[in-house]
């Protein structure tokens, strides 16, 4: 019983972290039809920006609680600077081109951003430990957790519910959904697609950077943190179905639980558990669990 509880909590924490990142990935794919390899770089840049801004706040001797604001601020700053810049200057030149070509464009972007962030922040590690102690410790059964870990679950819930509400219960959301379903018809109905693209991409970058910023307190921010994120968040959206928000949530939960089950019961399979789940889902539902079947256009 105790073991089951531990597996569930650990799985949920890991799933929350994954979900925040994968949500942005799936949103960008849904609207722009870009499978964004550079998403991992946005995550890393978010973590670096968090390090810089929290450092700035600490130097100003703000109360530690402000460091949470700093994390959010970092994600917003990255989204506002990086999102429009890349969408307007680069990605828009490729709309309508082959989806695989777009994957390559983001791969090139990933390579470039890897070195650019090294040029900006160097190779020495940054730590953002100030926010990590803010929520104290929480005792659950025989184990106790750092409150911050559980706060990540709350952040993920807020992101998920917020995006769901925004898409399904607001006019703007309906417009975005219309573009996701069929951008040509949406355009002919008078929707400014270009602006929707810009907005969706920027919001996707925000989510990646948010994931990075909120992870920064738990890790050492240094070169190479982008790579590991890419493949697991890809696994999540592939399992859930590309472009599906519910799918990203379920995918993250499945991957999170599979991983924590493996660690607790069969640790040798940890590396493999994610790929195993991915392969199993793909064999039975290659379009992912939540992908709608798209009518073929003649």
């Amino acid at each position: 019983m105790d073991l089951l509880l531990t597996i569930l909590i650990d799985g949920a924490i890991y799933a929350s972290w994954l979900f925040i990142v994968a949500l942005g990935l799936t949103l960008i794919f849904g609207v722009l039809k870009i499978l964004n390899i550079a998403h991992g770089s946005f995550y890393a840049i978010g973590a670096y920006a968090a390090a810089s801004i929290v450092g700035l706040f600490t130097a100003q001797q703000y109360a530690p609680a402000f460091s949470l604001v700093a994390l959010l601020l970092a994600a917003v700053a990255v989204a506002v600077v990086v999102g429009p810049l890349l969408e307007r200057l680069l990605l828009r030149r490729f709309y309508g081109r082959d989806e695989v070509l777009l994957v390559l464009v983001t791969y090139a972007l990933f390579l470039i951003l890897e070195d650019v962030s090294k040029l900006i922040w160097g190779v020495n590690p940054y730590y953002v430990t100030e926010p990590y102690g803010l929520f104290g410790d929480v005792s659950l059964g025989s184990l106790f957790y750092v409150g911050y870990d559980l706060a990540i679950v709350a952040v993920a819930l807020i992101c998920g519910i917020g995006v769901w509400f925004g898409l399904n219960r607001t006019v703007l959301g309906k417009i975005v959904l219309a573009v996701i379903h069929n951008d040509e018809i949406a355009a002919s109905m008078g929707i400014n697609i270009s602006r929707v693209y810009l907005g969706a991409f920027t919001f996707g970058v925000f989510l990646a950077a948010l994931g990075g910023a909120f992870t920064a307190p738990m890790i050492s921010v240094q070169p190479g943190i982008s790579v590991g994120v890419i493949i697991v968040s890809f696994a999540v959206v592939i399992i859930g179905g590309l472009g599906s928000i519910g799918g990203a949530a379920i995918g993250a939960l499945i991957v999170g639980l599979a991983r924590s089950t493996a660690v607790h019961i069969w640790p040798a399979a940890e590396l493999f558990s994610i790929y195993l789940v991915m392969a199993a889902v793909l064999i039975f539902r290659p379009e992912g669990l939540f992908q709608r079947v798209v009518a073929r256009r003649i």
Partner: protein
Amino acid sequence: MTKGKYRHAIAAGAVLAAGLMAATAAQAQQTFKVGIVTFLSGQAAESFGVPAWNGGKVLIEELNKGAAPAPYNKVGFGGIKIEPVVIDENGGATKQVQELRNLYQRDNVDFVIGYVGSGDCLAVAPAAEELKRLLILYDCGTPRIFEEAKYEYVFRTAATGTMDNVALARYLKNSNVKIDKFSLINQDYAWGHDSRSDFIGALSSIYPDAKMEADLLPAFGAGQYGTEVSALMRTGSTVVHSSLWGGDLQAFILQSAPRGLFKKATVVFSAADHAIPPLGDKMPEGAIIGARGAYGLMAPKSPLNDWFQKIYQDAYKVYPVQAPYRMVQSILGVKSAIEKAMEKNGGKKPTNEEIAAALTNHAWDSPGGRIRMANGNGHQAIQDIAIGKTKWNAATKAMELVDIQRFPAECVNPPPNMKGQEWLKAGMPGAKCN
């Protein structure tokens, strides 16, 4: 179609011409052109690649000025200046083989010092041997290189990973740590696998009754260790072993310390000294730490070490940890071998074969102590190692290593005629510990 073919040919010709020009432009004068390959980007840049080259850079500057203390006070290598060519090791073993060949054949380097990744070392060694060019591996830890093959032109100036884990086990015994149950957490790739089995092997002959509990293998670069920490906390293990390094190590420490892992168990890290300067007071007290040698805070006192610490600290405002030490011991080893060869051949710039002969079974002093090429037919170094325990010094506001124990090379390295794993299985026969 035909017009296109011409264009094709012209393009190919231009590419070839560019290549040839680059090749001829690179003809060396009378210097020692040394290829340096280390991680300048990716996960290993922060902890190993960049600090290692930082150490190499200041050392080469001093050597070229002839400003190093005796016996290293000759300019460059035997009076000939050193000209380094640096290449990034990031990008996989295939790329490394190609770039190594380019270093030798296109850039005409005299020899190459490099490689942190075990996979890279394994891949490049036969390539250098085939070209009959000198290759000095400075960092990687896999015992497979000289256990699986024989080389004439390949040397490794650092000990294998076996030493690190044997020393940890001996340290635990010497410090009277009781071990009923232990757990492990190592990355799921060759370095983690090797360290894991070396530690288990060493522990089972020193503590035959110790039982293994959690045996965790997180993915390389996982970054998130919450689940692993839960799994470790659930066990009753009093000792937790780990060979994590770099960003993974720091993330693991940041996530496990607040949850009380370091209070519940004695955590032993085989290669964690490089995390102490960046983490500072975030490094938990009471962790037992190795540095894959007697390096950094655990380096033995000597004028050479004081000098190296000073030039490094002056240049980078931080004390050197294991990676720069290993780079420096490699360069000094080659320097002393070259000078030995030049004494023999009357002061000419020595050939590959002359340097290789001088380096075989060679011994020299480095800031981390004496290095001897005793294993692998005189191609594999053994060296002394030190292990220490973290303790916060409130007066100087610095994390220090206390209760340092030193183990002589023959105590923790397999004898020349045995493979590491065989030696551990046999209960480490012939180990000389005093």
